[in-house]
Protein backbone atom coordinates (compact mmCIF):
# COMPACT_ATOMS: atom_id res chain seq x y z
CA UNK A 1 0.00 0.00 0.00
CA UNK A 2 1.03 3.52 -0.74
CA UNK A 3 0.07 5.49 2.36
CA UNK A 4 0.26 9.25 2.70
CA UNK A 5 0.25 10.78 6.16
CA UNK A 6 -0.80 14.42 6.07
CA UNK A 7 0.70 15.32 9.43
CA UNK A 8 -0.77 18.81 9.61
CA UNK A 9 -2.91 21.31 7.75
CA UNK A 10 -0.51 24.03 8.79
CA UNK A 11 2.33 25.46 6.73
CA UNK A 12 4.84 28.23 7.25
CA UNK A 13 4.50 29.31 3.61
CA UNK A 14 1.50 30.59 1.66
CA UNK A 15 2.25 29.48 -1.91
CA UNK A 16 -0.25 30.90 -4.36
CA UNK A 17 -0.92 27.60 -6.14
CA UNK A 18 -1.21 25.34 -3.09
CA UNK A 19 -4.01 22.77 -3.38
CA UNK A 20 -3.74 21.55 0.20
CA UNK A 21 -6.60 23.64 1.57
CA UNK A 22 -6.71 26.28 4.26
CA UNK A 23 -3.81 26.49 6.68
CA UNK A 24 -4.71 25.98 10.30
CA UNK A 25 -3.53 24.20 13.42
CA UNK A 26 -5.25 20.84 12.85
CA UNK A 27 -2.54 18.22 13.28
CA UNK A 28 -2.33 14.45 13.33
CA UNK A 29 -2.18 12.76 16.70
CA UNK A 30 0.23 9.97 17.58
CA UNK A 31 -2.73 7.60 17.86
CA UNK A 32 -3.97 8.46 14.37
CA UNK A 33 -0.49 8.13 12.87
CA UNK A 34 0.14 4.71 14.39
CA UNK A 35 -3.35 3.47 13.55
CA UNK A 36 -2.81 4.55 9.96
CA UNK A 37 0.53 2.75 9.79
CA UNK A 38 -0.99 -0.39 11.32
CA UNK A 39 -3.83 -0.13 8.79
CA UNK A 40 -1.37 0.09 5.88
CA UNK A 41 0.54 -2.99 6.99
CA UNK A 42 -2.66 -4.95 7.65
CA UNK A 43 -4.11 -4.10 4.25
CA UNK A 44 -0.83 -4.85 2.52
CA UNK A 45 -0.42 -8.24 4.12
CA UNK A 46 -4.05 -9.10 3.45
CA UNK A 47 -3.65 -8.24 -0.22
CA UNK A 48 -0.30 -9.99 -0.45
CA UNK A 49 -1.80 -13.19 0.87
CA UNK A 50 -4.84 -12.88 -1.38
CA UNK A 51 -3.09 -12.30 -4.70
CA UNK A 52 0.42 -13.50 -4.08
CA UNK A 53 2.09 -10.11 -4.39
CA UNK A 54 5.20 -9.32 -2.41
CA UNK A 55 4.62 -7.22 0.66
CA UNK A 56 5.60 -3.59 0.17
CA UNK A 57 4.52 -0.45 1.93
CA UNK A 58 5.39 3.10 0.97
CA UNK A 59 4.75 5.78 3.57
CA UNK A 60 4.88 9.36 2.40
CA UNK A 61 4.88 12.31 4.76
CA UNK A 62 2.96 15.28 3.49
CA UNK A 63 0.98 18.24 4.73
CA UNK A 64 0.72 21.21 5.06
CA UNK A 65 4.39 21.26 5.84
CA UNK A 66 5.31 17.93 7.42
CA UNK A 67 8.53 19.20 8.97
CA UNK A 68 6.43 21.37 11.30
CA UNK A 69 5.65 18.03 12.97
CA UNK A 70 9.24 16.82 13.07
CA UNK A 71 8.91 14.86 16.31
CA UNK A 72 5.83 13.01 15.06
CA UNK A 73 7.57 12.28 11.77
CA UNK A 74 10.60 10.80 13.51
CA UNK A 75 8.61 8.75 16.03
CA UNK A 76 6.14 7.40 13.49
CA UNK A 77 8.92 6.53 11.03
CA UNK A 78 10.63 4.51 13.75
CA UNK A 79 7.30 2.84 14.50
CA UNK A 80 6.90 1.94 10.81
CA UNK A 81 10.47 0.65 10.57
CA UNK A 82 9.88 -1.62 13.55
CA UNK A 83 6.64 -2.93 12.08
CA UNK A 84 8.25 -3.56 8.70
CA UNK A 85 11.11 -5.50 10.24
CA UNK A 86 8.77 -7.53 12.45
CA UNK A 87 6.35 -8.35 9.63
CA UNK A 88 8.92 -8.88 6.88
CA UNK A 89 7.50 -6.11 4.71
CA UNK A 90 9.65 -3.91 2.49
CA UNK A 91 9.22 -0.26 3.46
CA UNK A 92 9.95 2.89 1.50
CA UNK A 93 9.68 6.26 3.22
CA UNK A 94 9.33 9.62 1.51
CA UNK A 95 8.78 13.18 2.62
CA UNK A 96 7.75 16.18 0.55
CA UNK A 97 8.81 19.46 2.12
CA UNK A 98 9.14 23.12 1.25
CA UNK A 99 12.74 22.84 2.54
CA UNK A 100 12.52 25.94 4.71
CA UNK A 101 12.93 23.87 7.90
CA UNK A 102 15.41 21.39 6.45
CA UNK A 103 18.71 22.10 8.16
CA UNK A 104 21.85 19.97 8.00
CA UNK A 105 20.95 17.88 11.04
CA UNK A 106 17.50 17.02 9.70
CA UNK A 107 18.86 16.26 6.24
CA UNK A 108 21.36 13.89 7.82
CA UNK A 109 18.67 12.19 9.88
CA UNK A 110 16.56 11.68 6.75
CA UNK A 111 19.57 10.28 4.91
CA UNK A 112 20.51 7.87 7.69
CA UNK A 113 16.89 6.75 7.97
CA UNK A 114 16.71 6.19 4.23
CA UNK A 115 14.06 8.72 3.30
CA UNK A 116 13.55 9.77 -0.29
CA UNK A 117 13.10 13.55 -0.13
CA UNK A 118 11.03 15.80 -2.36
CA UNK A 119 12.02 19.46 -2.17
CA UNK A 120 9.30 21.82 -3.36
CA UNK A 121 11.47 24.55 -4.79
CA UNK A 122 10.62 26.33 -8.01
CA UNK A 123 14.18 26.95 -9.19
CA UNK A 124 15.86 30.31 -9.28
CA UNK A 125 14.78 33.28 -7.17
CA UNK A 126 12.84 34.94 -9.97
CA UNK A 127 10.65 31.89 -10.46
CA UNK A 128 10.40 30.71 -6.88
CA UNK A 129 9.61 34.06 -5.31
CA UNK A 130 6.82 34.72 -7.80
CA UNK A 131 4.48 32.35 -5.97
CA UNK A 132 6.20 30.83 -2.92
CA UNK A 133 5.90 33.36 -0.10
CA UNK A 134 5.95 33.51 3.68
CA UNK A 135 2.66 34.70 5.21
CA UNK A 136 4.05 38.25 5.39
CA UNK A 137 4.62 38.27 1.63
CA UNK A 138 8.39 37.83 1.65
CA UNK A 139 9.79 35.47 -0.95
CA UNK A 140 11.13 32.22 0.53
CA UNK A 141 13.85 31.40 -1.97
CA UNK A 142 16.84 32.46 0.08
CA UNK A 143 15.73 30.28 3.00
CA UNK A 144 14.55 27.25 1.02
CA UNK A 145 17.37 27.06 -1.53
CA UNK A 146 19.94 26.62 1.22
CA UNK A 147 18.76 23.02 1.61
CA UNK A 148 19.89 22.16 -1.93
CA UNK A 149 23.44 21.87 -0.60
CA UNK A 150 22.45 18.55 1.04
CA UNK A 151 21.15 17.00 -2.17
CA UNK A 152 23.76 17.56 -4.85
CA UNK A 153 25.03 14.99 -7.30
CA UNK A 154 23.73 11.81 -8.90
CA UNK A 155 23.48 9.81 -5.68
CA UNK A 156 21.18 12.13 -3.77
CA UNK A 157 17.97 10.35 -2.81
CA UNK A 158 15.93 13.40 -3.58
CA UNK A 159 14.17 15.32 -6.28
CA UNK A 160 13.42 19.00 -6.65
CA UNK A 161 9.78 19.68 -7.52
CA UNK A 162 9.26 22.72 -9.73
CA UNK A 163 5.69 23.89 -10.23
CA UNK A 164 5.01 25.40 -13.65
CA UNK A 165 2.27 28.00 -13.51
CA UNK A 166 1.18 30.63 -16.02
CA UNK A 167 2.46 33.32 -13.63
CA UNK A 168 6.01 31.95 -13.49
CA UNK A 169 6.30 30.04 -16.77
CA UNK A 170 8.60 32.67 -18.27
CA UNK A 171 11.29 31.60 -15.80
CA UNK A 172 10.88 27.82 -16.12
CA UNK A 173 13.77 27.02 -18.47
CA UNK A 174 16.22 29.31 -16.69
CA UNK A 175 15.15 27.71 -13.39
CA UNK A 176 15.91 24.22 -14.62
CA UNK A 177 19.25 25.52 -15.88
CA UNK A 178 19.87 27.09 -12.46
CA UNK A 179 19.18 23.79 -10.70
CA UNK A 180 21.38 21.81 -13.08
CA UNK A 181 24.17 24.31 -12.54
CA UNK A 182 23.93 23.54 -8.82
CA UNK A 183 24.48 19.84 -9.42
CA UNK A 184 20.85 18.86 -8.94
CA UNK A 185 20.31 15.69 -10.99
CA UNK A 186 16.68 14.94 -10.33
CA UNK A 187 14.06 17.52 -11.30
CA UNK A 188 10.30 17.09 -11.44
CA UNK A 189 8.34 19.70 -13.37
CA UNK A 190 4.77 19.62 -12.07
CA UNK A 191 2.28 21.76 -13.97
CA UNK A 192 -0.40 23.63 -12.11
CA UNK A 193 -3.45 22.30 -13.93
CA UNK A 194 -5.83 23.93 -11.46
CA UNK A 195 -5.63 27.35 -13.11
CA UNK A 196 -6.47 28.80 -16.50
CA UNK A 197 -3.57 29.00 -18.95
CA UNK A 198 -3.80 31.94 -21.38
CA UNK A 199 -2.59 31.33 -24.92
CA UNK A 200 0.53 33.43 -24.38
CA UNK A 201 1.48 31.30 -21.37
CA UNK A 202 0.94 28.12 -23.40
CA UNK A 203 3.38 29.41 -26.00
CA UNK A 204 5.93 30.19 -23.31
CA UNK A 205 5.43 26.73 -21.87
CA UNK A 206 6.17 25.09 -25.22
CA UNK A 207 9.28 27.24 -25.67
CA UNK A 208 10.43 26.33 -22.16
CA UNK A 209 10.15 22.60 -22.81
CA UNK A 210 12.14 23.04 -26.00
CA UNK A 211 14.89 24.84 -24.11
CA UNK A 212 14.82 22.30 -21.25
CA UNK A 213 15.19 19.57 -23.86
CA UNK A 214 18.37 21.24 -25.09
CA UNK A 215 19.69 21.45 -21.55
CA UNK A 216 18.77 17.80 -20.94
CA UNK A 217 20.54 16.65 -24.09
CA UNK A 218 23.56 18.75 -23.18
CA UNK A 219 23.85 16.96 -19.86
CA UNK A 220 23.80 13.55 -21.55
CA UNK A 221 26.44 14.70 -24.02
CA UNK A 222 28.63 15.55 -21.03
CA UNK A 223 28.00 12.07 -19.63
CA UNK A 224 25.53 13.20 -16.97
CA UNK A 225 22.23 11.30 -17.27
CA UNK A 226 20.08 13.68 -15.26
CA UNK A 227 16.38 13.05 -14.71
CA UNK A 228 13.74 15.55 -15.71
CA UNK A 229 10.43 13.80 -15.16
CA UNK A 230 8.55 15.03 -18.21
CA UNK A 231 11.34 13.75 -20.46
CA UNK A 232 12.31 10.58 -18.63
CA UNK A 233 8.71 9.52 -18.22
CA UNK A 234 7.67 9.97 -21.82
CA UNK A 235 10.83 8.35 -23.16
CA UNK A 236 10.50 5.37 -20.87
CA UNK A 237 6.85 4.85 -21.67
CA UNK A 238 7.64 4.96 -25.39
CA UNK A 239 10.35 2.34 -24.96
CA UNK A 240 8.03 0.06 -23.04
CA UNK A 241 5.12 0.84 -25.39
CA UNK A 242 2.66 2.42 -23.01
CA UNK A 243 1.87 2.66 -19.35
CA UNK A 244 1.27 -0.69 -17.74
CA UNK A 245 -1.55 -1.18 -15.29
CA UNK A 246 0.87 -1.19 -12.39
CA UNK A 247 2.35 2.17 -13.47
CA UNK A 248 -0.91 3.92 -12.77
CA UNK A 249 -1.62 5.14 -9.28
CA UNK A 250 -3.80 2.95 -7.13
CA UNK A 251 -6.38 5.68 -6.50
CA UNK A 252 -8.41 4.23 -3.62
CA UNK A 253 -7.17 0.70 -4.20
CA UNK A 254 -3.70 0.58 -2.76
CA UNK A 255 -3.17 4.35 -2.66
CA UNK A 256 -4.61 6.03 0.41
CA UNK A 257 -4.08 9.42 1.99
CA UNK A 258 -4.83 10.10 5.65
CA UNK A 259 -5.98 13.54 6.77
CA UNK A 260 -4.84 14.77 10.20
CA UNK A 261 -8.31 13.83 11.47
CA UNK A 262 -7.85 10.21 10.38
CA UNK A 263 -10.21 10.42 7.41
CA UNK A 264 -9.10 8.40 4.38
CA UNK A 265 -9.01 9.70 0.80
CA UNK A 266 -7.83 8.07 -2.44
CA UNK A 267 -5.01 10.59 -3.02
CA UNK A 268 -3.24 13.28 -1.00
CA UNK A 269 -4.36 15.85 -3.54
CA UNK A 270 -7.95 15.19 -2.56
CA UNK A 271 -7.46 15.79 1.17
CA UNK A 272 -7.60 19.59 0.96
CA UNK A 273 -9.66 20.97 3.82
CA UNK A 274 -10.79 17.44 4.75
CA UNK A 275 -14.38 18.26 3.83
CA UNK A 276 -14.81 16.27 0.60
CA UNK A 277 -17.58 13.86 1.52
CA UNK A 278 -17.86 12.53 -2.03
CA UNK A 279 -14.33 11.15 -2.04
CA UNK A 280 -13.89 10.21 1.62
CA UNK A 281 -13.44 6.44 1.65
CA UNK A 282 -13.19 5.66 5.35
CA UNK A 283 -11.36 6.42 8.56
CA UNK A 284 -8.33 4.92 10.25
CA UNK A 285 -10.57 3.92 13.17
CA UNK A 286 -13.17 2.04 11.15
CA UNK A 287 -11.19 1.15 8.04
CA UNK A 288 -12.50 1.44 4.51
CA UNK A 289 -16.12 2.30 3.89
CA UNK A 290 -16.69 -0.46 1.36
CA UNK A 291 -19.49 1.30 -0.51
CA UNK A 292 -17.74 4.63 -0.85
CA UNK A 293 -14.47 3.00 -1.80
CA UNK A 294 -16.08 0.83 -4.45
CA UNK A 295 -17.79 3.88 -5.92
CA UNK A 296 -14.48 5.75 -6.19
CA UNK A 297 -12.66 2.79 -7.69
CA UNK A 298 -15.43 2.26 -10.22
CA UNK A 299 -14.89 5.80 -11.54
CA UNK A 300 -11.21 5.37 -12.38
CA UNK A 301 -9.98 5.61 -15.95
CA UNK A 302 -10.77 7.99 -18.78
CA UNK A 303 -14.01 7.95 -20.73
CA UNK A 304 -13.57 11.00 -22.96
CA UNK A 305 -14.62 9.90 -26.46
CA UNK A 306 -12.18 12.27 -28.20
CA UNK A 307 -9.32 10.18 -26.78
CA UNK A 308 -10.42 7.10 -28.69
CA UNK A 309 -7.98 6.50 -31.50
CA UNK A 310 -5.49 9.12 -30.35
CA UNK A 311 -2.07 7.85 -31.44
CA UNK A 312 -0.44 8.79 -28.13
CA UNK A 313 -3.20 7.60 -25.85
CA UNK A 314 -1.05 4.87 -24.31
CA UNK A 315 1.60 7.44 -23.42
CA UNK A 316 -0.86 9.90 -21.90
CA UNK A 317 -1.63 10.54 -18.22
CA UNK A 318 -5.36 10.75 -18.92
CA UNK A 319 -5.94 8.19 -16.15
CA UNK A 320 -4.81 10.39 -13.24
CA UNK A 321 -7.93 10.50 -11.08
CA UNK A 322 -6.97 13.41 -8.85
CA UNK A 323 -6.01 15.70 -11.73
CA UNK A 324 -9.12 14.74 -13.68
CA UNK A 325 -11.26 15.45 -10.63
CA UNK A 326 -9.59 18.80 -9.98
CA UNK A 327 -9.82 19.97 -13.56
CA UNK A 328 -13.16 18.58 -14.76
CA UNK A 329 -14.97 17.55 -11.57
CA UNK A 330 -14.98 13.92 -12.71
CA UNK A 331 -12.38 11.29 -11.87
CA UNK A 332 -12.81 9.69 -15.28
CA UNK A 333 -12.74 12.76 -17.55
CA UNK A 334 -9.46 14.26 -18.68
CA UNK A 335 -9.19 18.02 -19.28
CA UNK A 336 -8.01 19.83 -22.38
CA UNK A 337 -5.07 21.39 -20.55
CA UNK A 338 -3.79 17.94 -19.56
CA UNK A 339 -4.20 16.81 -23.17
CA UNK A 340 -2.21 19.86 -24.31
CA UNK A 341 0.56 19.14 -21.82
CA UNK A 342 0.80 15.47 -22.65
CA UNK A 343 1.03 16.05 -26.40
CA UNK A 344 3.59 18.82 -25.87
CA UNK A 345 5.78 16.82 -23.50
CA UNK A 346 5.69 13.73 -25.75
CA UNK A 347 6.81 15.82 -28.72
CA UNK A 348 9.59 17.48 -26.73
CA UNK A 349 10.78 14.19 -25.22
CA UNK A 350 10.76 12.41 -28.57
CA UNK A 351 12.78 15.19 -30.16
CA UNK A 352 15.50 14.88 -27.55
CA UNK A 353 15.46 11.07 -27.42
CA UNK A 354 15.64 10.74 -31.20
CA UNK A 355 18.69 13.00 -31.31
CA UNK A 356 20.48 11.19 -28.51
CA UNK A 357 19.67 7.80 -29.98
CA UNK A 358 20.90 8.89 -33.42
CA UNK A 359 24.16 9.96 -31.78
CA UNK A 360 24.33 6.58 -29.95
CA UNK A 361 24.87 8.65 -26.83
CA UNK A 362 26.36 6.23 -24.28
CA UNK A 363 24.67 7.80 -21.24
CA UNK A 364 21.28 7.72 -22.96
CA UNK A 365 21.65 4.14 -24.17
CA UNK A 366 22.88 2.92 -20.82
CA UNK A 367 20.06 4.59 -18.94
CA UNK A 368 17.11 3.73 -21.14
CA UNK A 369 18.14 0.51 -22.89
CA UNK A 370 20.78 -1.23 -20.83
CA UNK A 371 18.31 -2.63 -18.33
CA UNK A 372 16.30 -4.09 -21.18
CA UNK A 373 19.13 -6.33 -22.21
CA UNK A 374 21.11 -9.01 -20.44
CA UNK A 375 24.45 -7.60 -19.41
CA UNK A 376 26.50 -9.62 -21.84
CA UNK A 377 24.32 -8.50 -24.75
CA UNK A 378 24.10 -4.82 -23.87
CA UNK A 379 27.12 -3.93 -25.87
CA UNK A 380 27.47 -1.07 -28.32
CA UNK A 381 27.11 -3.46 -31.24
CA UNK A 382 23.46 -3.96 -30.41
CA UNK A 383 22.88 -0.30 -31.14
CA UNK A 384 25.09 -0.14 -34.23
Amino acid at each position, binding site marked *: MNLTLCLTHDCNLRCAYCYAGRKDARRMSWETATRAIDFAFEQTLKRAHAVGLPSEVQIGYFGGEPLLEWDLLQRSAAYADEAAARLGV*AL*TKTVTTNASLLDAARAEWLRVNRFYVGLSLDGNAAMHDTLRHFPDGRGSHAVCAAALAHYRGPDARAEVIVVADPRNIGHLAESVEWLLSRDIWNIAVNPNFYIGWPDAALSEWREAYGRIGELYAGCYRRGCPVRV*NVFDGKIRVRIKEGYAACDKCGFGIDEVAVAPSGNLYPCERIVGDDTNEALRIGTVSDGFDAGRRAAVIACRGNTVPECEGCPVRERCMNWCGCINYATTGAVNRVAGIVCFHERMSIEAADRVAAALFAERNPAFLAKFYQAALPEEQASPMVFA
Partner: protein
Amino acid sequence: MNVQKAETRVDPGYPTKRQLAEGAKAVGLAALGLGSLLAAGCAPSRTRGVIMPVREGGVVAQEPARLKGDIAVEPKREVPPQPLGGVRVEPAKP
Protein backbone atom coordinates in the same frame (compact mmCIF):
# COMPACT_ATOMS: atom_id res chain seq x y z
CA MET B 1 -9.44 24.23 -24.21
CA ASN B 2 -10.63 20.91 -25.55
CA VAL B 3 -9.12 17.48 -25.75
CA GLN B 4 -7.59 16.96 -29.19
CA LYS B 5 -6.12 13.96 -30.93
CA ALA B 6 -2.40 14.10 -31.47
CA GLU B 7 -1.17 14.31 -35.02
CA THR B 8 -0.38 10.87 -36.34
CA ARG B 9 3.29 10.25 -36.00
CA VAL B 10 5.10 7.64 -38.02
CA ASP B 11 8.13 7.06 -35.84
CA PRO B 12 9.44 9.00 -32.84
CA GLY B 13 12.97 8.23 -34.01
CA TYR B 14 14.11 5.81 -31.33
CA PRO B 15 13.14 2.19 -30.89
CA THR B 16 10.94 0.49 -28.40
CA LYS B 17 12.33 -2.42 -26.48
CA ARG B 18 10.47 -4.80 -28.75
CA GLN B 19 11.83 -3.15 -31.89
CA LEU B 20 15.30 -3.28 -30.43
CA ALA B 21 14.94 -6.98 -29.79
CA GLU B 22 13.69 -7.55 -33.33
CA GLY B 23 16.53 -5.51 -34.74
CA ALA B 24 19.05 -7.38 -32.68
CA LYS B 25 17.69 -10.66 -33.98
CA ALA B 26 17.95 -9.35 -37.51
CA VAL B 27 21.65 -8.74 -37.08
CA GLY B 28 22.18 -12.18 -35.66
CA LEU B 29 22.14 -11.61 -31.93
CA ALA B 30 19.96 -14.47 -30.90
CA ALA B 31 18.59 -15.36 -27.52
CA LEU B 32 18.61 -11.91 -26.03
CA GLY B 33 16.19 -13.14 -23.42
CA LEU B 34 13.96 -10.12 -23.82
CA GLY B 35 10.81 -12.17 -23.68
CA SER B 36 11.12 -12.64 -19.97
CA LEU B 37 11.84 -8.96 -19.46
CA LEU B 38 8.82 -7.94 -21.47
CA ALA B 39 6.71 -10.27 -19.42
CA ALA B 40 8.23 -8.91 -16.26
CA GLY B 41 7.34 -5.34 -17.15
CA CYS B 42 4.32 -5.51 -14.94
CA ALA B 43 4.82 -8.83 -13.29
CA PRO B 44 4.49 -9.15 -9.56
CA SER B 45 8.06 -9.29 -8.44
CA ARG B 46 10.07 -7.70 -5.74
CA THR B 47 11.05 -5.01 -8.19
CA ARG B 48 7.49 -3.71 -8.29
CA GLY B 49 7.48 -0.12 -7.16
CA VAL B 50 11.15 0.26 -7.76
CA ILE B 51 12.34 2.80 -10.28
CA MET B 52 16.01 2.64 -9.61
CA PRO B 53 17.50 0.14 -7.20
CA VAL B 54 20.66 1.49 -5.64
CA ARG B 55 23.01 -0.60 -3.61
CA GLU B 56 24.29 1.20 -0.57
CA GLY B 57 26.00 -0.54 2.26
CA GLY B 58 24.64 -3.89 1.28
CA VAL B 59 21.04 -2.77 1.25
CA VAL B 60 19.07 -2.36 -1.94
CA ALA B 61 17.43 1.00 -1.58
CA GLN B 62 14.08 1.62 -3.15
CA GLU B 63 12.92 4.67 -4.95
CA PRO B 64 9.27 5.48 -4.40
CA ALA B 65 6.78 4.60 -7.07
CA ARG B 66 5.45 8.11 -6.77
CA LEU B 67 6.52 10.96 -4.60
CA LYS B 68 3.76 12.71 -2.71
CA GLY B 69 2.60 15.75 -4.53
CA ASP B 70 4.30 14.64 -7.71
CA ILE B 71 1.72 14.19 -10.43
CA ALA B 72 3.95 13.43 -13.37
CA VAL B 73 4.06 9.71 -12.73
CA GLU B 74 6.78 7.87 -14.51
CA PRO B 75 6.38 4.32 -15.68
CA LYS B 76 8.40 1.86 -13.75
CA ARG B 77 11.83 1.29 -15.10
CA GLU B 78 12.36 -2.09 -16.64
CA VAL B 79 14.88 -3.92 -14.56
CA PRO B 80 15.95 -7.50 -15.03
CA PRO B 81 14.01 -9.80 -12.72
CA GLN B 82 16.05 -10.92 -9.78
CA PRO B 83 16.51 -14.65 -9.37
CA LEU B 84 14.58 -16.38 -6.68
CA GLY B 85 16.58 -16.28 -3.53
CA GLY B 86 18.43 -13.26 -4.80
CA VAL B 87 19.04 -9.99 -3.08
CA ARG B 88 16.39 -9.30 -0.51
CA VAL B 89 14.91 -5.84 -0.28
CA GLU B 90 15.18 -5.06 3.37
CA PRO B 91 13.54 -2.36 5.36
CA ALA B 92 15.83 0.43 6.41
CA LYS B 93 17.50 0.03 9.76
CA PRO B 94 18.22 3.11 11.80
